[in-house]
């Protein structure tokens, strides 16, 4: 299943911030974690993660520092800041409202019509 681009974009910030709550991390590891959490269903274009990280850094939600990894390569690590935690809490409340509303819509829709048939009856535009 392909997740719609807009949905990926909307969920990217809370996902990244949420992952960083567990401790600082770097780009590749963050992407791997997203992959793991969504069981491979949410594929980001890898390169797009970095402009997002830089924006969050500029706005003060995360802080970056260069570390040297065990392999001897330099890596840019990101850690969440107080402002980032506050933003995350705020986003979390917003998403709770959205998912609640969606859940209700799904159950009501399921009760109101037998799935496929009703869709077909809709006049085509």
């Amino acid at each position, binding site marked *: 299943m392909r997740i719609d681009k807009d949905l990926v974009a909307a969920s990217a910030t809370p996902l990244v911030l949420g992952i960083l709550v567990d401790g600082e991390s770097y780009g590749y590891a963050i*992407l791997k974690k997203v992959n793991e959490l969504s069981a491979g269903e949410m594929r980001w274009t890898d*390169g797009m993660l*970095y*402009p997002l990280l830089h924006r969050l850094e500029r706005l*003060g939600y995360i802080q970056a520092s260069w570390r040297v990894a*065990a392999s001897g390569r330099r*890596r840019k690590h990101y850690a969440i800041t107080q402002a980032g935690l506050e933003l995350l809490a705020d986003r979390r409340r917003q998403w709770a409202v959205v998912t609640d509303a969606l859940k209700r819509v799904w159950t009501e829709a399921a009760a109101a019509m037998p799935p496929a048939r009703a869709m077909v009856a809709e006049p085509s535009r």
Partner: protein
Amino acid sequence: MTAVPRTPDAGLEAQIGQWRGYVQRHRAISPADVDELEGHLRDQVADLEHTGLSGDEAFLVAVKRMGSLDQVSREFAREHSERLWKQLVLTAELPEAADTRSRRELVVVLALAVAAAVAIKAPALAGYDLDDDASWYARNFGLLVLPFLAGYFAWKRRLGWARSLRLLAPPFLLGALVANVYPYAEDGSTEVLVAIHLPILLWFVVGLAYVGGDWGSHPRRMDFIRFTGEWAVYYTLLALGGAVLVGLTLAGFEAIGLEISSFIAEWVLPCGAVGAVLVAAWLVEAKQSVVENIAPVLTRVFTPLTTLMLLAYLVALLATGNVVEVDRDLLILVDLILVLVLGLLLYAISARDPLARPDLFDQLQLLLVLSALMVDVLMLVAMLIRITEFGASPNKTVALGLNLILLANLAWSARLSVGFLRQRLPFSALERWQTTYLPVYAAWAAVVVLVFPPAFSYT
């Protein structure tokens, strides 16, 4: 992930090197960003090799997952607009198309410069003389030149005729009315105030065209601040060069017994001065990266010097105890000093990498702002005393208003700087404050131009 010692794979290294070179060609991606992306690529390749792919295959998959570099670079450009603010157009143009457009641009700029020169000389046909009607020229100077600059940006940002006229014509017409319909008293100070503030107001109208009508966008406003700073540097350079050339020409003609100084004063100087306004703007736009290095250098040299000057002045002011006795000219002078401080601050902010950590220079800058604030508060007290003692005159009221505006800006800037130095606030808060404040200056200039003359009965 385990840290396995990688076997040196010459083929893979060469491929990664090639990829790196290709990424580096995108100007929006800085070398540090390329390092970060390369690290990502290597991690991905290593993981894929673990699953059994060969080095080549792993590299191909990893590059593919990285996404189209043009798209990624565009995303970087959006986030780091300061890295290529001069290119502004984020869509990639074909090289040939860009080439013909830049050649056409030169023609447009030169045509507009000639038109501005004609506009400045045209009133001479109607009997206005630069010397005899100096006050008329002073009031109308901005109106004769800046519409052409606004026109250039309207063309460059592809605003279209209808939108340009709707957006830009009303303020210029209003300015023309105020400059020529108000019955100014001879040698009155409101006339001088209009002559000073109208060009400032019209410069913001040019800004409206510069940002392509998108005046709500804070990054675009920052671009306009940068443009203003760089334009000032270019204009000064052109003026210096022009002065040297004119001096040599005069001396040369004099040596062979030809007197051309009146021709120079009546034609070359005014036409050159207005033409340079457009040429300087074009030079800034044409992404000459020379100045990019000059603005930060100027800021770094003059920030400590200005701080020293202000502190010395403050000490002298307190030591002589002359705070109440200061006269009006001094108050205006202090306003100018504060404008300079604000200019330095804006230069520094616009040239700074927003992601860099606070350093010594940022502390120095806070010191500059604080010393300016102290001078300002002293002056404000002095001015209030003067106004309550002798009543309000147009000059004193303008000096006071400007002072209050600068005080508010600098005080809040100082507060934000402290937050930034303590790492409680991101640098973007400072940037945002300055771009948010920008309309205040325009509004103040508008008040001085529109309201002051009638309020002080045109004296």
